[in-house]
């Protein structure tokens, strides 16, 4: 199968997972959507599980790569976080089914799948480390402050995706930004950044 067929197959598998649930997700329907033969499928994957895990890994790579690229640059750390967050929220709003696969349908399959979700969240921790340096109270901050910030954003995003309101997320960017920044900067400075972000938005 070529790269485009593979992409289509992996996406179709995640759509199956979201639409039908793990038990009823059909490799056959996903193959048909991607015009992939049984032989081509079997040459690449051992079965449904391997294909689903590959689909999830592929999706998480894209999400992390996009958010990380948007966080790069020489602007002050809060500005880069805002740009990366904005990009992530627009992607989630544009592809709500994939967001649901990312946050709920796949992690709920079994503990091994859930571990992938934990690993995904931990990949945002390095971006947050810069916040520790930026805070001015680096040494005093709790050891887990980076994951506390990532988890704060995740809780809001998860809640909106789960409630079928992913399209609202871009409008919520300033408040989510506040929640990410507040463990590093405190509420007053984080609120200033939130107001600037709201004005810019």
């Amino acid at each position, binding site marked *: 199968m070529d790269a485009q067929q593979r992409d289509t197959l992996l996406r179709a598998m995640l759509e199956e997972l979201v639409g039908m649930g*793990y*038990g009823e997700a059909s490799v056959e329907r996903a193959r048909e959507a991607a015009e992939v033969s049984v032989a081509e499928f079997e040459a690449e994957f051992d079965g449904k599980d391997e294909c689903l895990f590959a689909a999830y890994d592929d999706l998480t790579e894209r999400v992390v790569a996009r958010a990380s690229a948007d966080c790069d640059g020489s602007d002050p750390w809060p500005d880069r976080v805002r740009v990366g967050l904005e990009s992530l929220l627009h992607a989630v709003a544009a592809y709500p089914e994939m967001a649901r696969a990312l*946050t*709920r349908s796949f*992690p*709920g*399959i*079994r*503990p091994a*799948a*859930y*571990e992938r*979700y*934990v690993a995904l*969240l*931990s990949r945002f921790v390095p971006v947050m480390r810069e916040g520790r340096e930026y805070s001015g*109270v680096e040494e*005093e*901050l*709790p*050891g*887990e*402050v980076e*994951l*506390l*910030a*990532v*988890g*704060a*954003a*995740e*809780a*809001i995003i*998860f*809640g909106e995706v*789960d409630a079928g309101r992913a399209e609202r997320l871009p409008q*919520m960017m300033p*408040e*989510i930004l*506040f*929640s990410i920044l*507040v*463990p590093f*900067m*405190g*509420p*007053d400075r*984080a*609120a200033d950044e*939130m107001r600037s972000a709201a004005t810019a938005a």
Partner: protein
Amino acid sequence: MLTTGNDVLTVPDRERILQAMADCCAENGYAETTVDTVLKRAGVEPESFDSHFASKEDCALAALNKIVSETLARISMTNPDAEGAVERRKYEGRAVLELMAARPTFARLGFIESRQGGTEPMHSAYASGVRVLALMMERLGRSGGSGLAARAALGGAEAVIRRELAAGRAARLPQLLPDFVYAVLVPFVGQGEALRQAKLAAKVATEEG
């Protein structure tokens, strides 16, 4: 509830089934847990399961209720001499973390399976619990953002809890009390005060009993 002789005899079965349900979900996830695997693990007969629960979901919800009831009981028994809402929350937090360390599979059922792996009624039970906790936190002080600030702060603490539970490190959770105290206070009381309270929480975490 009226307790008959027969009820007394079957109470241990119910407890064994609930423990087995939590353990099986932690090992295999709710979706792949079957009543059969729960029965085998609990070492009870199918008739006993049927006399207590209508279905697998009913059993999982009962396991969730059990951990919620134990949590509330622990909270009600925390340090009665602690002065002020913030001080009381520290002791309550410690009690909850110690319970999670003692019942890691039940904690996993509550924080992971019911959130991302279970059925809609399980998910609703999780969401209701989180809403109550977020409201309790909002009352701790001023908010620099909005009602979302409490939900987010709680979400930060939950992310750390879920990572530790998934990694089989529930025993470490009580040591993380200062981190959680900081996370839930910082949006409401300011950074300086949250750092001070986190330092005080480190003492609470190591206090006897």
